[in-house]
């Protein structure tokens, strides 16, 4: 197949393409298992294969995919025709930024490959965790595992050849019950990763999951009888899974270069950031240091190379509150620099990613991380808050089309009074305008509070692509935030 791919790439150049690449998913395997109320709910295996071909011709992109490898040559011709058709309405000729030609490989660091674990053992662990979520107050509960493996071969007309074997492991615990007002409340947990460990079945047999299951049930019991979160302006302590959402929606998406240029306008929206802002704009307080790090170990956002064949890079996005860079690809930085009439971006940030062989890669988050700060461990952060709220676990999120504002609802909140947790509150929500909010960043937790959260449901693009990525985030404290209850 590699010979066939090389021949097709050669033929595309001969037919007039200026560049082409092929991503062949030799093996695209997904297993999903779940319980619902103590009974097996889902047991399915997905096996796919296919290839996506991207062709640059007359300065425009064409893309075509197939799941029938017998028709690969026809698919290549279709992609070339798409590019020629697209070139009929072209204002700016796409010129790829340079990259190193590489013959290389990447493999997720895995101790126990989930594909080698018997279904019996998987079922045993699934139901062991399910049992831990049972309680009289819990009327709905579930445990889910998802194991994903891809073997991808990438080759392009510049001579790069890259083999990747990528494993992702997801697991979630959910429990819910009816509160004192007769309304459903929920607690949930999704596993995170440790940059010093590995990604595999070992994540599932980790006994911390047992502890977490018990904690969820205990917290749910408290939520069911807790008072509503009061509407007020106060300090807000945001724990890791909510911090991941906060970073994702108001930093990550806002700094995708295609959004900034206007290529996502018709669907996902634009960005409040414009090209003049780089190196100048005060995005947040001096405590804010953010990066797009395609090298963070063990994250679903770390795949060795992006789908331009560019190695993962660690790019500083925001330095002491000042906007420095964006999520970039080979396709867009030349256009951005030309429009800005200055060199903002010197090379691709390695953030051009596709959900699968069926999709054209676009600028996507890899790992949008915040650096840990020097304001102490969680207890110390709480002790600094006179009147505040601590929140965890996203329940709902809605963001303005230019990422200029947001409204989030959380599963659980803890009222803080005089530096101590007072009680749990129900239905906490908070919202604000993105830039003022990041400028209200008061404290950033130290390394002990930093956690690598996994995200499996980031949607963007037309055709829509659901991306896997990570957010390494510390616990943070913001001042003067509008919080409330439900709407």
């Amino acid at each position: 197949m590699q010979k066939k791919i090389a021949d097709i790439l050669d033929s595309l150049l001969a037919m007039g393409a200026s560049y082409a690449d092929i991503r062949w998913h030799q093996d695209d395997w997904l297993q999903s298992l779940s319980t619902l109320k103590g009974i097996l709910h889902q047991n399915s295996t997905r096996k796919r294969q296919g290839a996506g071909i991207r062709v640059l011709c007359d300065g425009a992109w064409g893309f075509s995919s197939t799941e029938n490898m017998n028709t690969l040559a026809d698919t290549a011709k279709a992609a070339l025709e798409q590019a020629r058709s697209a070139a009929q309405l072209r204002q700016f000729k796409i010129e790829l930024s340079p990259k190193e030609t590489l013959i290389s490989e990447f493999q997720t660091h895995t101790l126990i490959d989930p594909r080698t674990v018997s279904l019996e053992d998987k079922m045993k662990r699934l139901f062991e965790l399910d049992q831990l979520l049972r309680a009289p107050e819990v009327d709905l509960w579930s445990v889910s595992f998802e194991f994903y493996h891809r073997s991808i071969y990438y080759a392009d007309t510049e001579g790069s050849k890259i083999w990747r074997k990528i494993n992702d492991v997801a697991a979630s615990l959910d429990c819910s019950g009816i509160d004192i007002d007769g309304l459903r409340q929920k607690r949930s947990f999704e596993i995170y990763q440790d940059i010093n460990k590995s990604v595999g079945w070992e994540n599932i047999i980790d006994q911390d999951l047992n502890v977490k299951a018990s904690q969820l049930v205990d917290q749910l019991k408290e939520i069911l009888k807790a008072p509503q979160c009061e509407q007020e302006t106060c300090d807000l302590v945001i724990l890791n899974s909510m911090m991941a959402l906060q970073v994702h929606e108001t930093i990550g998406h806002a700094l995708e270069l295609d959004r900034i240029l206007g290529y996502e306008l018709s669907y996902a929206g634009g960005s409040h950031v414009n090209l003049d802002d780089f190196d100048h704009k005060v995005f947040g307080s001096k405590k804010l240091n953010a990066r797009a790090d395609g090298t963070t170990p063990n994250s679903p956002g770390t795949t060795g190379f992006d789908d331009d064949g560019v190695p993962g890079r660690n790019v500083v996005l925001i330095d002491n509150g000042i906007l420095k860079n964006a999520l970039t690809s080979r396709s867009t930085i030349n256009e951005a620099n030309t429009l800005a009439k200055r060199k903002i971006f010197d090379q691709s940030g390695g953030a051009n990613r596709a959900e699968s062989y069926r999709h054209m890669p676009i600028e996507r988050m890899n790992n949008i991380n915040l650096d840990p700060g020097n304001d102490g461990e969680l207890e110390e952060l709480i002790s600094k808050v006179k009147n505040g709220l601590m929140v965890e676990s996203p329940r709902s999120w809605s963001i303005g089309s230019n990422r200029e504002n947001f409204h989030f609802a959380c599963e659980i909140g803890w009222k803080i009074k005089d530096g101590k947790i007072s009680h749990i509150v129900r239905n906490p929500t908070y919202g604000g305008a993105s830039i003022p909010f990041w400028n209200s960043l008061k404290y950033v937790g130290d390394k002990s509070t930093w956690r690598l959260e996994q995200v499996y449901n980031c949607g963007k693009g037309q055709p829509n692509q659901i991306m896997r990525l990570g957010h390494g985030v510390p616990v943070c404290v913001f001042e003067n935030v509008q919080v409330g209850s439900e709407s």
Partner: protein
Amino acid sequence: MKVDHQLLINANQYLKDQGIKGQIVFRSERSHLVRAGRNQVSLNTSEEAARFFVQIQLGKKQSKGEFVLKNNTTEELIHEIKELQATLPLLPEIDHLGDLLNLAQGDYNDDHSDMDMINMDTSLMVDVYAKAVNKFADKGCEVSGAFSLGTYAYSIINTNVEQPISYRGSDYNVDVVLQLKEHNNKEIKSSQVGASLAEINADAMIEELDRHFLVKTTTHRKSVPIGKYNVIFGPEAVAEILAYTSWVGFSGESYLMQTGMFKKGQHDIGSKVFGDNITITNDPTSKHSLFKRRVGLNGILRPAHTIINKGILKNLIYSSKDICDRYGIVVDNDFATASFELLPGTGPATWTELVQQTKEPTLYINTLHYMNFTNVAKGEFTATSRFGTYLISEGKVQDHLYNIRVNDSFHHVFNNVHWLSSKITSVNLSSTYGMRLASSVSVPEWIEVKDVPITACFAPELSENA
């Protein structure tokens, strides 16, 4: 693209010979998508896919798989079925597991596809954006959007029957968005959805964009204080509200598990849940239904369902076999191919009428962006306005507004509809790539809702000081 029905029959026979109950669904698609941005085509893609979805049952054990086969042969499919078979002894029993669904049999194989869409020249799609660029680029606008079209098919067989049932259809949906670069980056949008190439009307889209362009360039832009307002929602906003309500309200499974907005004892079948002027159906025979599929993706017949009749909850949709088995309920429809319709009223049928009859200050919201549930149990949601937010009063569009945030509940909305337009329109909800399945809802062109809570306004000066 087209599956050999004999392959499905052969694999089904294998299951029968093995004494196994099972169901096989074959789905295929061919899609094109052209995306525009900054007055040019930024992406031109095509996709073809063909997959098998297999579910097998032995006693109270069940296993499922999804497969792409290299050559779509009986031998390959049976090989995958055998691998699923091998997992059955390792699985726990599912006590509630019921028999397979009774598939429709008889003359229900429909083909509504426009074959011109399969190997079409995508220049036709590019031309829509070229027209918009020609019209608006020299007015300081940047054109963007997405145009998706394609054909799709599904065939279903199970061991209760001898023959597969199948459907083949096609659809298109197109959005054209203008960003008014010389007018503070304001945005406007026009959309269309349909089932065949002949229905595409680029001129009508240009006309609609022109109307919004005029409003946005001849009125002042203002912010509004937060508070409660009467709001006229445009078709995309109404469709969004209806679609989200269907997910948390009309799903029988959500009701059974009490994970939705209707509460047992309070919102039971027969109870009054919405205002008198609200009737909502799921009716594949309606003249307004765009994709008239008689058989769902689950292979069962789709009867006409009245969900809400004059505010009274009449039916819910039971579509998930696993949940229905748990509660001893019969699967009676298919949510994936639903054709929801909010029946029209006697309100204005044209934009001119709408504006002229609006005397008191009233907000107009064209589109609701990024809707999400803030509290499902109470049917509460939030979203922001987009692509046109206006203040209308004294029979005139007085101002256009910065985008605003709505925080409301579906209970409140559907109990406070002042009027519904007499004109009905279809709005796209399709999954258009990654296994195409056309879907739309039919809604009145506009509805007015009283006392909608507006909780934020995104005027730049308010954002910077918030």
